[in-house]
């Protein structure tokens, strides 16, 4: 759900709006972004949700898809890699955001 709601608009912004100059040049500048994030725990929390949660969405769907197209025998290994990857990404996200 998080990915469905937030990602399209973010991708439009970082993919088209800002690089093509439809927004002021300093929209994603260090000063602006850094002060927005470091100054607010709520912003950090929202960012954490937007970045980390979709990794679980990926882990679940990707693992089941690989099993469905024939990799059923290594299903357990795939679970470890996918969910483990999502958990690692979550931890890394938390650490990085904490440090901003």
């Amino acid at each position, binding site marked *: 759900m998080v*990915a*469905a709601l937030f990602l399209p*608009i973010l991708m439009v912004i970082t993919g088209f709006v*800002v690089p093509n100059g439809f927004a002021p040049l300093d929209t994603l500048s260090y*000063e602006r972004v850094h002060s927005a994030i470091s100054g607010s725990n709520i912003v950090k929390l929202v960012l954490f949700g937007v970045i980390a949660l979709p990794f679980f969405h*990926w882990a679940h769907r990707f693992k089941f898809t690989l099993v469905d197209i024939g990799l059923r025998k290594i299903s357990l290994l795939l679970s470890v890699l996918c969910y483990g990857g999502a958990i690692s990404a979550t931890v890394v996200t938390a650490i990085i955001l904490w440090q901003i």
Partner: protein
Amino acid sequence: MSYIRKVPNTWWLQRKPYFLFIVRELTSVAVAGYCGFLLYLMYALSKGPVAYSDAIGLITHPASYTLHMIGLLLVLYHTITWFNVTPKVLVFHLGEEKVPAVIIAGAHYAGWLATSALVAWLLLGTGTSV
């Protein structure tokens, strides 16, 4: 002796609904890919202005446009296929009649519009900080 038929690994290529299902599931890779990019931006941010400006500069690279375009198409497919099935999951009966599917899905699309507008306003709106 009953005969057990084998399922080929190409089962999903044999009918359009199955193919579209696999495409739908693989959109999760685009989702993870973009979140990985956001994570990388955050990492660069934590390393200071120079590291960050290098990282954000990537969005002006020609490959960025292509990747964003493909990723966006996939992520949109993900959003649309998801919202369109929500009426199957959220079933409410008013008396004997079901709340129409268009209202359930519509509510999600409305929420999507509102969220996108909010994010756009926060990121692109005038004013130097959130």
